[in-house]
């Protein structure tokens, strides 16, 4: 598993610090910055970086793999956070851990307290590799709508080449936000928005918020009118699998301005771990619910993707829809996968995937 936090020797700072680590001189195409921390020496267990005259010792055996990484150091802490890993396509900034929904499969259960890190995040965007896609996630990022919109405007001005993938439950827009939304460069933002069923009662039960579906629908229409590029996301559960084909109809009829529909398998962490027995659908033995929905959505011309489905759990005709959706830092393969010819094109498993109560149809292809 790729480490997102690394041990450091604490340095004397009072404010959180964002710097870009450099183990080789920056190439000409990179944006130069006085936030670059050059490596000055390297041992077998650690490397020292020069942060404006201070020495930052990072405990790592692979200092070179950190080249170009944008990292955050918090005063008094013995770790640094790799906010943006230069070598990865899976970089996400956690805007907040607060949330107004309590989805039964939430992989990142909400917490009460919020720490505003927008200034640091903006600095990180400025230092990001060219044309990177940066995820913004939570919790629910738009609980801090004013700060987030300000951050997006500044970030888009400073770095028009950066693309954002924002995950939001779409509960916090108002008609009055239309002008603000229109002031953003909508073409470079992909909005990932969960919808679990076309039936309001079922959706509301899954997100544990009464009336959520109605607000979601209203705001999807609002985003659609603002020209947002939408990725609708549906985690399949025992609670909604029988509703999936109806959702396919709803999405292709009423949300036809969406560009992508992602049908997602469950990630066994957070609330999903607690509810795994009652909610996990073993699509390796029963794929029909997904198949009918995919047939309808693709038949009507909607780009439809299967996230977090290992290829061997999916009938061959549907594997084209599978994508490498599991982020590199939490992806693993099983011993069975060693002999599989499809391994390199397979998304694999979450690090915390429970083999003993997971898919029953895992076999090398």
């Amino acid at each position, binding site marked *: 598993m790729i480490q997102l936090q690394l041990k450091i020797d604490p340095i004397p700072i009072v404010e959180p610090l964002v710097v870009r680590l450099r183990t080789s001189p920056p190439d000409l195409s990179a944006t130069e910055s006085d936030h670059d921390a050059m490596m000055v020496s390297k041992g077998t267990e650690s490397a020292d970086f020069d942060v404006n005259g201070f020495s930052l010792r990072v405990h790592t055996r692979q200092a070179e793999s950190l080249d170009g990484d944008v990292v955050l150091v918090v005063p008094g802490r013995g770790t640094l956070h790799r906010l943006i890993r230069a070598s990865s396509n899976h970089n996400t900034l956690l805007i907040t851990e607060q949330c107004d929904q309590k989805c039964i499969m939430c992989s990142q259960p909400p917490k009460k307290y919020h720490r505003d890190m927008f200034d640091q995040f903006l600095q990180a965007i400025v230092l990001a590799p060219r044309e990177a896609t940066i995820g913004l996630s939570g919790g629910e990022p738009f609980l801090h709508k004013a700060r987030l919109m300000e951050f997006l405007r500044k970030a888009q001005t400073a770095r028009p080449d950066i693309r954002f993938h924002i995950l939001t439950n779409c509960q916090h827009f108002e008609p009055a936000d239309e002008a603000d939304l229109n002031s953003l460069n909508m073409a470079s933002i992909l909005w990932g928005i969960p919808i679990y069923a076309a039936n309001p009662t079922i959706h509301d039960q899954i997100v544990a918020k009464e009336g959520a579906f109605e607000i979601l*629908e*209203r705001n*999807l*229409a609002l985003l*659609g*009118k603002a020209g947002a590029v939408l990725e609708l996301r549906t985690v399949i559960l025992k609670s909604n699998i029988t509703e999936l*084909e109806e959702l396919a*109809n709803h999405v292709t*009829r*009423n*949300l*036809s*301005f969406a560009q992508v529909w992602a049908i997602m398998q469950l990630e066994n962490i957070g609330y999903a771990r607690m509810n795994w027995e009652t909610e996990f659908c073993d699509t390796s033995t029963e794929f029909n619910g997904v*198949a*009918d929905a*995919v*047939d*309808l959505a*693709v*038949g*009507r*011309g909607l780009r439809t993707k299967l996230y977090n489905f290992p290829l061997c759990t999916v*009938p061959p*005709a*549907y594997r084209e829809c599978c994508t490498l959706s599991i982020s590199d830092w939490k992806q693993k393969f099983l011993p069975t996968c060693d002999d599989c010819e499809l391994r390199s094109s397979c998304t694999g498993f979450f690090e915390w995937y429970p083999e003993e109560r997971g898919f029953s149809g895992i076999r090398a292809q």
Partner: protein
Amino acid sequence: MKVWPLQFRKLDEDDILFSDDAGAFFRSSEAFLDRYVNNQLTDHDSAFLKLGGHAFDAVGDPAFVGFASRWTQRINPVTSLGYVILVPTLRCNLMCDYCQVSRAAENARGFDWDDEKLAQVIAFLDHQPTTEIKIEFQGGEPLLRLDLLVAVRKFCRSKFAKSEFVICTNLQDVSEDAWRFLEAEDTYVSTSFDGTSELHQTQRTKTASAHEQFNANLDLALERLGTDRVSALPTIDPLNPPEPTDVISAFVSRGLGSIFLRRVNYQGFARKKYGLGKSHQEWTDYYRRFVGALINHNATAEHMIEEYYLSHTLRRILQGGHHNHVDMRNPNWMGVDYLVIDFDGNFYPTDEARMVSRVGQIDLSIGSLNSGLDVQKISAFNQHASNFDDPDCVHCVYKAYCGLDLVDDLSRYGRIDIPRHQTEHCRSHMDFFDFAFELLYSEDPDVHKSIASWLQVPRYNQTMAQRHP
């Protein structure tokens, strides 16, 4: 709840096809039609219409915005010029039966671009704002002037971020230089192959030796360029058509997966003699028989085959979009994204417009390399380019999928205002859509298997073809 306007067409006794302006459709009964017309919809009707996206509650609600979005996707947007057909020479080394007007003898003079024309063509392309372009070389036989093709391609590759080239060639004489030219990754071959060797020889190549030469070159093209970069289009005479299974096996044996059946399109004198009116039913019958044979083939075949126009139409019916065919798009903008430049430098909105003008029937040119685009004539065309306000089309159940073909109307009737259902374009497309909907509503698993392959979906989900009691 408000219901979007529904068009309808009686298919059979108590069996009516309904559709709305965004292309959603269903089949229902006379009784439902009565309830709809008399504003007596039941709760069950309302729920069905709501679920199908045919109705909304309030302006701006998701059902409304969803409908608006689907409607928009069916409108062919105005884009900049990105597809140019060039005719570097009108000379040809074949004398096919149905080609009376678009060729000159191989040794004739004065039918090629001279240096000045080439320079003008390049200057014209240089002024286009697009970053992507597709150039189709027509003729005559364009490979007779390989030098001009080389010059244009070289320029386009340097000027545009992306460029592709389609060479419409009879593959009769292909020099080694020409083969090397065709082998480039951005270059495609489109040729005619009338379905069976016998027919192709009778209609086109004439002598056994010439036919052998074509045959060998087609095989060589597939071998050197691959089946993805070669397409072969059969021209069919409905009064003397080849046996569908023979055509299919000829394509299958060559590894070609797409057949675009084209009905012979006579111009001028020949049109009167072999009149389309006379062969309308023959064509419809043949087309259905052909698709039936395709479905039979696909039922057991490993590599499935499509009829291109049918696949394209099914996608337009179910998905909207797909504005890349000039015979079926709405509005059918003329002289906007697509342009034909003839050997003499005249501009035409379509290849058929070029033919019609050549026989002297009517001048449909829209400017020339010398005088530029004739903006007035183009806008005269485009005032009538859509079926939105055609008095007949507005009531048609197939309106959302279809489009107009002004050039065809002008070429046949000399005017564009005769009742739509009397035009050849409308009659043949009505038959064609009727057939497409028959397939969509078929219960035959073999039909489903073919439709799935044509739509490129794993399985055909029949809930796309809704029925309402």
